[in-house]
C-alpha cells in the first residue's frame, strides 16, 4: 500500500517546482562559495593549512539555512497540493489508512531532501576539485558535511509536516518556517536543545555525530506524534 501511495504522491508533485527546488538548494549553497572563492581565492587559501577542510566549513556555513528554508517550502508545497481543493477528503475516503497517507508524505519529503544532500555532496566535491584544493580528496568529510545535516534536520521536517498537514491556513507553517530560518541563522547563540541548531552540527561537546543521533531519535518521535495527531483528527 505504501508503494502505491508513494507513486501517487510523486505523480502529484509534478509541475509544482519541487524537483527544481530540490536541486536549487544545494547548487545555491555551492554557488555562494563559487562567488566567495572566485573573488578572494588566494586570501581564503592562506587562511588554513587544510584547504579542503576550510573549504568544506565555508560550504557548510550556508547548508543549515538552505535545509531549514528548503524544508519549510517543500512541506508547505506538499501540504498545499492536498489543501488547495481540500483533496484530503477524497484521499482519506479511499481504502487507505491515514497512518500510511502520512507516512507517504513524509517519505516523499525525506527522499527529496536526501537527493538534495546527495547533490550537495557531488557539487561541493566537484567545485573543490576544480579549485585544486589538494590531491587527497577527503571523501568521508565531504559525505559527512552533506548527510549529517540531513539527519540532524529530521525533527524540523517532522515538525513542519505535522503543522502543514493539520493547519488549513498555510500561513502558520510558513511563519514557523521563517522563525526556523532565523533560529538556524543564529545557531551560534542557541542552546543545544533547540532543534533548529542541530543542522549546524554544533554542540558543546564538539561532536557532530551527537546531532545526528538526536536528529534521528527526536525526528522519529516528532514524526510519530504528528502522525497520531493527523490520524486522530476529523477531515473537514
Amino acid at each position, binding site marked *: 500500500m505504501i508503494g502505491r501511495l508513494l*507513486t501517487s504522491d510523486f*505523480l502529484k508533485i509534478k509541475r509544482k517546482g519541487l524537483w527544481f527546488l530540490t536541486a536549487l538548494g544545494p547548487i545555491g549553497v555551492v554557488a555562494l562559495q563559487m562567488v566567495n572563492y572566485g573573488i578572494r581565492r588566494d586570501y581564503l587559501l592562506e587562511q588554513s593549512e587544510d584547504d579542503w577542510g576550510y573549504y568544506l566549513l565555508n560550504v557548510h556555513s550556508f547548508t543549515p539555512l538552505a535545509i531549514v528554508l528548503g524544508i519549510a517550502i517543500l512541506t508547505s508545497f506538499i501540504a498545499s497540493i492536498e489543501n488547495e*481543493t481540500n483533496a484530503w477528503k*477524497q484521499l482519506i*475516503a*479511499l481504502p487507505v489508512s491515514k497512518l500510511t497517507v502520512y507516512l507517504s508524505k513524509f517519505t516523499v519529503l525525506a527522499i527529496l531532501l536526501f537527493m538534495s544532500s546527495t547533490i550537495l555532496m557531488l557539487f561541493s566535491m566537484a567545485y573543490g576539485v576544480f579549485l585544486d584544493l589538494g590531491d587527497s580528496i577527503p571523501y568521508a568529510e565531504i559525505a559527512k558535511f552533506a548527510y549529517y545535516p540531513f539527519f540532524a534536520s529530521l525533527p524540523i521536517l517532522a515538525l513542519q509536516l505535522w503543522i502543514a498537514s493539520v493547519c488549513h491556513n498555510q500561513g502558520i507553517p510558513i511563519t514557523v518556517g521563517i522563525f526556523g530560518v532565523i533560529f538556524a541563522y543564529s545557531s551560534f547563540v542557541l542552546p543545544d536543545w533547540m532543534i533548529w541548531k542541530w543542522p549546524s552540527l554544533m554542540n558543546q561537546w564538539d561532536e557532530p555525530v551527537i546531532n545526528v543521533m538526536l536528529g534521528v531519535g527526536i525526528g522519529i518521535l516528532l514524526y510519530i506524534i504528528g502522525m497520531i495527531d493527523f490520524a486522530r483528527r*476529523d477531515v473537514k
Partner: protein
Amino acid sequence: MEYIVQTENLSKNFGKEQAVSNINLKIRKGEIYGFLGPNGAGKTTTIRMLLGLMKPSSGTIKIFQKDLKKERINILAKVGSLVENPSYYPHLTAYENLEALRKILGVPKSRIDEVLEIVRLKDAADKKVKGFSLGMKQRLGIAASLLHNPELLILDEPTNGLDPSGIIEIRNLIKRLPEEHGMTIIISSHLLSEIDQMATQVGIVTKGKMIFQDSIEAMRRFAQPKVVIKVSDSEKGWRSLVANGIKAEHKDDLILFDECSDEKVAHIVQILVQEGISVYRVEEEKRSLEEIFLQMTTGEQTL
C-alpha cells in the same frame, strides 16, 4: 431484508453544538436514496461519518453489514464518493488526476478511459483541470468516484454548479447505475425537485434530526402542489365553495386547494363564475421544502 447502510443513533457534536443527532439510516441494495435537507442540516456531516472522515460522537455505522469502525479499509474499497465541492489537483490533467487515484486503488489503467467516457470528459482528458468549468470538475469528481466500480456510491450535492444540460446528464447517469451495475446510491441535496426526479427512497433531515424516511411515493403525497385562486370577493367565493362541499382554505384574500385534478379545478371555477364572482388568476403553487418540513415537524408525530 438486509441493509447496505445502517446507522444506529448516529450523533456528532461540534463542541456544544449537536450537528447530527440520533440518525437511523436504513438503505437497501439497489436503492437510490435521496438525502434531503436544508443547508446546515447535517447531511454532509452524516456523509463524512459514513466515509470514516469524521468519527461519530456516538452511535454505530454498518456498511455491507460490517462495522465501519473495525473494517474501514475493507468497506471503503467498495465505496465511491464525492463529498461537497469536488477535490482535484489543478496542476494535473484530468487523466493524471484519475491516475493518482487509480494507483492507490490498484485498478487497471483501462478504467480511466472508461470512466472518462461515462462522464463525457474524454476530449478534455489531457487538459489541466485548472482550466475546467465547475461542471467539468464536478463530472471529473464523479468519474473519480466510479473508478473502482463501487457497490455503494455516495454523492454529496452532485448537481451543484452544473448547467441544465449537465444536470440532466448526471441525473440520467445516476438513474442508470443501479440497473446496469447493481450499485446502491446515496445522493444528498437541498432541492426537493432534484431528489424527486431520481430517488426511490427519501430521508429528510433538519437541524440534525431525521424527520422522515420512506419511499418517494410517500414523500410525494406530502409535496403535492396547491392551487391558488384569486377572485374579486374571496370571502363570498370561499363560502359558496364550502357550501358546495369542496374543501378549501381562505387566506390573505386568496382561496387555496389541496388536491387538484384538472376536473376539480374546472368544477371550482365553474361554481365561482356561476356565483357571479370574477376569477382573476388560477395558479399552481409548488410547496417549498421549508413548508413541507414545517408540516412534517408540526403535523402528526407518527411519521
